[in-house]
Each structure stands twice: as C-alpha cells, then as structure tokens.
C-alpha cells in the first residue's frame, strides 16, 4: 500500500558525529556521555541543523567539536550566557549547554545561576569530575575538603559546592543527576531533560581516569552501587540496597536510613514527588551524600515555570500588536520638531 506521508530520513547515532577525531584521554567518562547524547538525539529525531551545542572551556567543553550540529566552543564559564543570547533570538533551536564543575561552578558560577533562574528553554549538562582536568589536576569547587592535588599538597581547605543544591537554590525547574557509566540511566535522564520545556539542569558524575580516577567508584562499583545510590522515581518510595531492603524515611525535617521489615513498611518511607511546587524535598535530596546516605540519581525536580525566551518574544509581539510594527518616522518625529524653510 502506498502512503502519502513523507517520512524524514531517520538519523542514526553515528549521523550526529562530526568528522573530527575525538581527543579525550582513552578511558575518559566523557566518551560515554557523548555516545548517549548521540543516541538521545537519534531516538528523539532531533534535526542536526536545528541543534546547537554551546560550551565553555575545559575537557567537557570540547564536546561541540564532536557533534555534527551547530556549535560554539566559547570562553571559560560563559556558555550559559552565550546560550541565553542565542536562544532569546532563536527560540526555535534546540540548545544544549555543556559545562564542567570548574567551568560552570567556579569561573562561570554567576552565569549558571542567572541562566537557571531565567529558565530559558535549554538543557545544561554539567560533567562533574571533581577535578580540573585540562589544566592537569588542580582541585575544583566540587573536590572534597582535604583533597590533595598539585595546587593543594596539604589538602584542599575550601568546602565543596554541590551542583544540584546550587541549581535548586537558583529556582531550577528541572534538576537531575546521572552517572557516566550507568548508560541506560544516563540516556533516560538526558531524554527527560530534552523533553522538558525550560532550563534542564543535569549533573553527570564523570570519571577523570587520569587526574581523579575512581572518584565515583562507590557509585559505579558493581558490589557497592546499590547501597550507595538510590534511584528516584516519581511517586515511588525511596528504596535501595542490594536486597532492596533499605529505605529513606523522614524524621521531622531530617532524612534517615531505615531497614524495611520489623514493623517498617514501604508506606513509612519518603515518597518521591518531582512535581512538588516547593523545592524543599528536592533540596533535601540534593543534600544526601555518602557515606551517611545513598546518593540519589534520577530526576529530583520537574515543574513548569515561565520561560525568559518566551516572555521576551511575547513582549515584542505584544508591543507590535498594540502599537503596530514600528515606523522609523514615528520615533524620529515624536516630541517637538520645527521646520527650517
């Protein structure tokens, strides 16, 4: 049977690869993120010409060069601001911001904060490897206290930042976390981010096998990961552990780890609600850290908020509808004029 529908050619993940050689260190977690990104674009049918990747500086920020889309490898920390200008004038484009813990939270902290609060419709993926890789191994704003690096031979003395807590504090409407080697989860998380309308902020635990190898072993090791992470699912209780016998319960304002059975049932546990209008729960989850707690992965928060790019273009539209498209003569002759014969 003939069909009159014209079907667009289906792009395979490989069709999103540029002709440039990928130059990350062998074994870097970035490879996995790149592979998942191509899969997500392929499975969502994203058009290459309508997709733009914007990055700052750092290992992760080489990402745009490897994608056969439009892209800007900008300057250190400024990718969210570049994306803001781009998306404001071209709301039709699918925009991804690729950043790292140094790029996004140190030199570019200000832009990240304001991009998130404005809630433009783009996706920010922060590769968190808890180290400066491209400058060869200094501690980063997410490195733990006491971290010994080239620039901190006696241990880091500043308290680390927690990317998701920052994002939630900036009124983020979509906040998620995944792990480079947990490819199924990573793919699903990126897909959720792409589908969300508004700024999606995704933290990816990413292993730097050269300067900070094993930083996330606890969360990726086959033997431990089920006890050290808890997968968030909307409307479901927070249950984890190899035998799925542990859960998170709220004790007043504090979360606590409890064992199921012995009078504690699933109904006693904290149920995840990513749609909660208040960010309190999401923030509480973002504070759960090893070794006291399993670290949550998945979507922490997904709510709908007004978007800066929409409102900006709406105001222009409104002004044009109200007073008509501008005629230069109108402004030039506004106010008092006089004529010389």
């Amino acid at each position, binding site marked *: 049977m003939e069909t009159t529908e014209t079907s667009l050619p289906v792009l395979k993940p490989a069709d999103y690869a540029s002709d440039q050689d990928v130059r990350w260190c062998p074994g870097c977690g970035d490879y996995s993120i790149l592979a998942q990104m191509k899969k997500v674009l392929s499975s969502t049918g994203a058009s290459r*010409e309508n997709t733009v*990747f914007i990055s700052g500086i750092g290992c992760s920020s080489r990402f745009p060069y490897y994608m056969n889309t439009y892209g800007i490898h*900008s*300057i250190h920390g400024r990718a969210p601001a*570049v994306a803001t*200008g781009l998306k404001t004038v071209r709301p039709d484009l699918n925009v991804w911001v690729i950043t790292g813990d140094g790029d996004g939270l140190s030199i570019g902290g200000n832009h990240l904060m304001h991009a998130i609060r404005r809630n433009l419709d783009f996706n920010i993926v922060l590769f968190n490897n808890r180290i400066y890789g491209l400058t060869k191994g200094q501690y980063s704003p997410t490195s733990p206290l006491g971290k010994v690096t080239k620039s901190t031979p006696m241990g880091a003395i500043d308290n680390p930042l927690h990317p998701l807590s920052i994002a939630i504090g900036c009124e983020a409407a979509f906040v998620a976390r995944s792990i480079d080697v947990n490819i199924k989860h990573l793919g699903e998380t990126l897909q959720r981010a792409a589908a969300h309308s508004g700024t999606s902020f995704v933290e990816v635990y990413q292993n730097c096998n050269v300067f900070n190898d094993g930083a996330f072993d606890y969360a990726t090791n086959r033997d431990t990961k089920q006890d050290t992470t808890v997968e968030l699912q909307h409307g479901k209780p927070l249950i984890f552990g190899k035998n799925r016998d542990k859960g998170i319960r709220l004790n007043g304002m504090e979360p606590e780890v409890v064992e199921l059975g012995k009078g504690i049932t699933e109904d006693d546990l904290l149920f995840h609600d990513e749609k909660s209008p208040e960010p309190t729960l999401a923030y509480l989850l973002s504070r759960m850290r090893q070794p006291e707690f399993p670290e949550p992965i998945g979507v922490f928060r997904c709510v709908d908020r007004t978007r800066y790019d929409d409102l900006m273009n709406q105001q222009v539209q409104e002004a044009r509808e109200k007073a008509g498209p501008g005629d230069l003569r109108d*402004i030039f*002759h506004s106010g*008092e004029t006089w004529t010389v014969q």
Partner: protein
Amino acid sequence: MATTETKISKPKVQLDRVTVRFCGDSGDGMQLAGNQLTNTSALMGNDVATFPDFPAEIRAPRGTKAGVSGFQIHFASQEIHTPGDDVDALVAMNPAALVTNIRDLRTNGILVVDQDSFDKKGLGQAGYSSNPLEDNSLNGYQLHTIPITQLTRNAVDGLGLSQKESDRCRNFFAMGLIFWLYDRPLDPTLRYIDEKFGKRPQIADANRRALKSGFHYGETAEAVATQFHVEPARLEPGTYRNIMGNTALAWGLIAAAHLSQKRLFLGAYPITPASDILHELSRHKRFNVLTFQAEDEIAAVTATLGAAFAGEMAVTASSGPGIALKAEAIGLAVMTELPMIVIDVQRGGPSTGLPTKTEQADLLQAMFGRNGECPAAVIAARSPADCFDVAQEAWRLAVRYMMPVFLLTDGYIANGSEPWRIPDVDSLEKIPIEHPGAAENGEPFLPYQRDERLSRPWALPGTPGLMHRIGGLEKQDITGNVSYDPLNHQHMTDVRAQKVANIANDIPLQSVQGPEEGKLLVVSWGGTYGACATAVQRAQAAGKSVAHCHLRYLNPFPRNFAEILPRFEKILVPELNMGQLRLLLRDRFLIDAVGLNKVQGRPFSVQEVLEKIEEITE
C-alpha cells in the same frame, strides 16, 4: 476692564549667541531647566549645543559642593559646535553652586542668585567665610540678588502645597526669568508642564505660576534693565528636532536593524553614562528590539555573541570599566569572525574613575585591550546627532567584514544635545546581508571560506547542511577546524589584520577643512570635534595657516590620510587623554605630532585649542 499693571518698556539688544548655565543642588531641577531652555531655543530656530554636568552621587547631601549639578546651553543665530566657553548668564541656586561655577562666568556677565539660600548654613557648606552677596567680591558681574525661594512661595500660595513642594518649583521661577531675559516664549514649557504633571493638577498649576512669576519679574523689576534677542540660525532647510547623543545612537541602531532587515539584540549591564542606550532601546520593542539586561558585563557581551551566531543584529553597550570586562569575549568575536557592535561611551578612568565626567581615554583599550594579536575596527562619533549616522556605519562594517566594530562616544556626546535634521527614512542607505542557503551535497560546510574582502560566510543555525562549530581555539583557514599548525596560526593572524586593513577600501577619503597644505594641521577624533573645528575656523579667520582633519575612522585610518599629514609642517592632536591618538600617529606615520592633552572631566574650550594653535603658529 482696566488693568492697573504697568508694563515697563525695556530696550531689547540683539545678540549672535548666548551661553547660559543653570546650577544648583542635584535636587533643584537644573537639568530640567536646561532642557526646557534648550528645547525652546531649538524650536525658535536657534542652533543649540548643550553640556549637562552632574555629580556621580544621586543625591549628595543638600547644599554641599559635591551635590552641585549644572546644565550649560549655548544658543545662536549661526552654526555652533560647542556648548560655549565663557558663560554669559549664570543662575546659581545656592552658595555651593556659586562657588563652584563663578569662575566660568565672563567679566560683567549676568549673575542670578537665590538670596534666600545664602544663609549661614549654606555659606558654611560652600566654604564662604563672608557672604559674597554683601562683601563686594562679585562686583565684576551684573549681580541680581533675588529672593527666589520667597517669590516662588508667594506665587504658589493658596494651592495648598507644603513648603517643600513649593520650594521644588524654584527652578521654574528661575527659568521664567531667563526666558524673559532672552526673549523666549513660555509655550513649549507650558506644554511640557501639562504633559508631565497633567495627572497632578496642583503641581502643574504651581509650576505654571512659578514660571510666569519669574517671567513677570524680569518684565517688571527695575534692576533687570535690558532684554536680549537671538535671531534664528540659518540652518539647512528641513525638519529638525533636538536630540541627545545616547538617543541618537539608539535610534541609529534601530535604523540599522531596519535597513539590514534584522531584529536588534542589545546585551547590556547598567553603567553610567551608557545606560540610557539600554533605556531608550527598551522602549522600542515594536521595532523588533530585544534588550537583555544581563547579570554582568561579560554575560552582556557573550549573549550578544550568541545572538550574532544566531543571525541577528548584535550590539553591546557599556563604558570603560565594562569594556575591560568584555575584553576576552571581544577576542572570541574576533576569532569566530562574528559581526557585532561594541559601544563604549567613554568616561573618566582608570578603574571607576569619574563616572559622570567625560574623557577620551579608551581609544587604546579599543585598539589593543585584548590578549593576543586581536585587531578590531574602531570608529567614533563626533557629536550627539552624528551618533545616528555612526551607528549605521558600525553595523555596515561589522557585517561586511564579519568582525566586532568598536563605536566610541563619550559622556559629553552622550548627554549633550544639538539640533538634528530628521532624515528622510527612504533615503537611508540599505545594509544588505547575505546568508548562505541550504547545502544538499553532504560535503562538510566550509565556515572560513573567504570572499574578496576576506570575510567568511555568516551561516545561520537552522540551515540544512551548513552545520559547523566555531570557537576560541585557532582555526584552520577555510575548514574552520581546530588547528595548532604554526604556519596556519601565522596565516590566520595575518588574515585577521588584513581584514581590518581592507576596510580602508570601503570608507570615504579623509577630508581636510582649510588649506591642503600649510603650517599646522589639527587632527582630532570623537567629541572634541566642536571645540577643534571652531578654534581652527577662528584661527583661519585670523589669517593663520592651519587646517583641520577630524577622524571618524580610527582603525583603519582612511587610505589617503598618510598623504595628508606630510603636507603640513606641524601636527597638533588635541585629546581628552594623555596622547593616545598621538601615539598611534607617531607609530603609524613616524611623525612628530604635538599633543594638547587634558583629563579634567570636562571638554575642551574653544579658547584652549585656539591658544595652542596660536602658540604653535607664532
């Protein structure tokens, strides 16, 4: 009905030009008074030039010297280019205003003071040990000691205003008196009052009464013996309006967007004295103007770069400190070869410097203030109205050569005003832009494939087949791929420089006002145009062998400029900096140029430039 009012007939003296300055506390409404006198004079057909001068503090403590705000206006029956050197009439609303401004009043000039503000406290704040109104120290002026506060209170009596509200009408009394003195009609100001205070009829009425009261005071007070009249100037036929530099610049940008069929994106962070560009553009959204008030200067320029990549007219506007913050991103625009306008409304520096005062000390920052070999085009406006034309020229060059273009103005041009002959919209030159269309051949797009000007194609996201990546790493020419090849870096550095140099083929030849050769050539740029042009004209009238080149294009220079310079024995470069253009001229042309340099937060007077010309041509 008979009237008992007697109108004293007073002689009326014709003058060619008059300079008036209002000064008082920053809450006294001096800017408003100056603007009203300016608009009225412009509507009467005079040529006008203005110089508002206000403190950086919004409201410094009342009555202090730090809080003095002034507005100078020059109106004439002939063409003028400056707000005037010496003041003919000075209105001082308090002792602090008097002590800080009296040195600019010419000998035997008219001095109007509000007697009521010369009390012990006011005199003390101004640092007077004795009252100048009584100690004969003002004998060299035509002093009018008028109880303006009391007369204003009398005028508004019965309207139920508080004393504070009554006293806020004092500026209208002062305006009224000056309007009578210089034979100006009250109608435009009365219309302004209706418009501005229409919703507060009581205040409107009070201001009207104060204005008329001041006018009648001039008419009837015996001490004010003479009235002056300035005929309309013979300006080029056309419809005119008065315009400030920042407004003209904003309108020029809107026009450029219209002429290039682009939407206009402005990325800006509030900064004196550039913020009015952001304010003005924000009012005109219906012209497809998108204004982004960024979180900082860096976000302002990088968002502008994003908008440029997306294919819209991209502009960022700031002043010196903000431009310093933008430097790295401007380098990225040079590297990625994207078109944008970088506006620098210069103010006194370094660092925070003198935020509300004028200076021309960012020329070298625009030329060189970035890492690496990073050339960009630089052009400058010469007067408030010129900002309109220069804005369009900046965009024309940015898109033809795919690069950031610096547009320099300064605080003096930004806040000053002059009559602007409104152009016929249809006569404005279009700014054509071409974007490459979709490619179907499956070959990788070549984003750095160059045309005869060495410009690269402006390929827009959304165009099938033209996907490409740009960035701050060095690019291989033609392909745009990252390249660390030594010879390619040399080649790309040369190309970026050559692109700027090629602009010289695309701009008008430099004109010379005066003889084609001679003893002295005055070379100026930016806001010093008026003082330099007027000084040269006066020197020429006095028989001096002197000519004038005023540069709009600073990088590159016009291609005939090198031939002009050697035809003169000496070159004088007056600048409101310590010799920045002079440094470039010495470097580029190996000439021993002489400077006239001043950084006092104030523009040149004509006299300062003229004296230097006379000294050199002795």
